[in-house]
């Protein structure tokens, strides 16, 4: 009998039907159309912690015109599937959309995960399978290379107040590449073989969105990000801007509320599941939140603040690049989406928490991210 069971188990393990079970982990719960509001109890119990957080995050320096210091527009804290704290400033409220800047990249990476889960794309595929207009000498770039900023495309990620004519990102968003951004990025020469070096690039993730479109648009239509991801996780009113050719600007131009951004964090905290629906492949979140291989090999330009995971910043050192722990006071499993002017979505699985902050910090050195999230954890952590 025992041997019969053993062979049965072996048979099951062998059978293709038993390939990774598509189960979802236990969860503390998911929001419906609105987050369940549990903020009153926290407000009563954590007055000192809330004051410390608000003194730091919501104290303006100088006049609005001077654009100095920390300029927070919203903070939303989720714990145990419920909204435990939120505050808005400078004209924002729960319904007003905010620019996400590079937080958009984490959405685009997630859309690739949705395409993979639906069996419409493989990470090892050439990008030319989905973006046929890419020049043939760039067909050696695989989807995974774009996810890891490792296409090898010769690109300069320089923002305002620097040498504008040298900036590939300004040329794509506002200059000669703006009408066909995906074609503009794909048309660049490479300086490295794909997979051998890392270069943070808004262009690469915008090309990645065109890859996702190639996989998802045929079945879902032109508004594919909505049925693929935005609607299933209950986002209320996101706007995803496109170029004149209809490419979504997957590296920069998503607009959304802080509450909607917290939903992406909550999807990631729950291993890519929303209620009982698995939106991302099993193992996707783990693979996205470990140090990718190319960044260990060679890193260009931005020695600090690199995206070590697949479109997610993680709290893990990269000794090969002499990079220490990014946020020493935060749990080791913390990972984040980040954007220009101070947009953040921090996911802390070990505390069952998501912390969102949106802002308009024109001085990128104003905010101490490690300090902010630490203060937010004190406000929102489980009693």
């Amino acid at each position: 009998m025992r041997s019969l069971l053993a062979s049965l188990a072996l048979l099951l393990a062998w059978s293709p039907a038993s390939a990774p079970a598509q189960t979802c982990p236990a969860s503390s719960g998911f929001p419906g159309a609105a987050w369940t509001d549990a903020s009153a109890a926290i407000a009563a119990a954590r007055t000192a912690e809330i004051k410390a957080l608000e003194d730091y995050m919501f104290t303006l320096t100088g006049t609005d015109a001077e654009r100095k210091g920390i300029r927070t527009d919203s903070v939303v804290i989720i714990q145990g599937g419920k909204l435990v704290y939120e505050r808005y400033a400078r004209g924002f409220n729960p319904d007003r959309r905010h620019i996400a800047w590079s937080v958009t990249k984490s959405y685009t990476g997630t859309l690739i995960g949705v395409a993979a889960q639906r069996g419409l794309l493989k990470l090892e595929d050439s990008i030319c399978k989905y973006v046929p207009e890419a020049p043939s000498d760039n067909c050696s770039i695989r989807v995974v290379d774009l996810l890891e900023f490792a296409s090898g495309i010769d690109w300069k990620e320089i923002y305002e107040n620097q040498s504008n004519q040298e900036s590939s990102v300004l040329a794509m968003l506002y200059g000669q590449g703006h009408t066909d951004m995906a074609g503009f990025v794909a048309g660049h020469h490479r300086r490295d073989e794909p997979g051998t070096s890392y270069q943070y690039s808004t262009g690469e993730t915008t090309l990645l969105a065109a890859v996702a479109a190639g996989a998802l648009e045929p079945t879902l239509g032109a508004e594919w990000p909505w049925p693929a991801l935005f609607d299933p996780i209950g986002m209320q009113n996101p706007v995803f801007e496109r170029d004149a050719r209809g490419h979504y600007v997957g590296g920069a131009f998503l607009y959304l509320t802080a509450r909607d951004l917290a939903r992406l964090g909550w999807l990631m905290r729950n291993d890519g599941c929303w209620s009982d629906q698995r939106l991302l492949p099993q193992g996707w979140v783990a693979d996205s939140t470990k140090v990718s291989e190319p960044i260990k090999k060679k890193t260009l330009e931005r020695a600090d603040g690199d995206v070590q995971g697949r479109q997610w910043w993680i709290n893990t050192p990269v000794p090969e690049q002499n990079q220490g722990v990014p946020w020493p006071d935060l749990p080791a499993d913390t990972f984040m989406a980040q954007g220009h002017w101070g947009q953040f979505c921090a996911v802390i699985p070990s505390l069952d928490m998501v912390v969102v902050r949106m802002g308009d910090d024109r001085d990128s050195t104003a905010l101490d991210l490690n300090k902010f999230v630490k203060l937010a954890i004190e406000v929102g952590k489980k009693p």
Partner: protein
Amino acid sequence: MKTAKFSLAAAALLLALALGCGSSRPGYPYSWNDLRLISSYTAKTACSCLFVMEFDEAACRAYAKQEPPIATWTVDRNAKTVDASTGLMWGARARYMGPKFGCTLE
């Protein structure tokens, strides 16, 4: 015969030139000057501020301002477009494309 040969050579040269041009690839430094980039940035940023973030015009003038503040812009609320320029040249237009797609630079 001589003419035919010449034509053939000319055709080959033209083809080579065409292929050469066809393989011209984008790369830095890029051609657009600062004024043109600032016009584009201003048009797109103001358009999204007005129609996507839904702030009023005064707030959007502050939001879209660049240093030095050399760009000017006007909004056409019926057409849902924003036109920006730096001086008399280098105009740019951004157009609101609807509740899901926001603004696009033309």
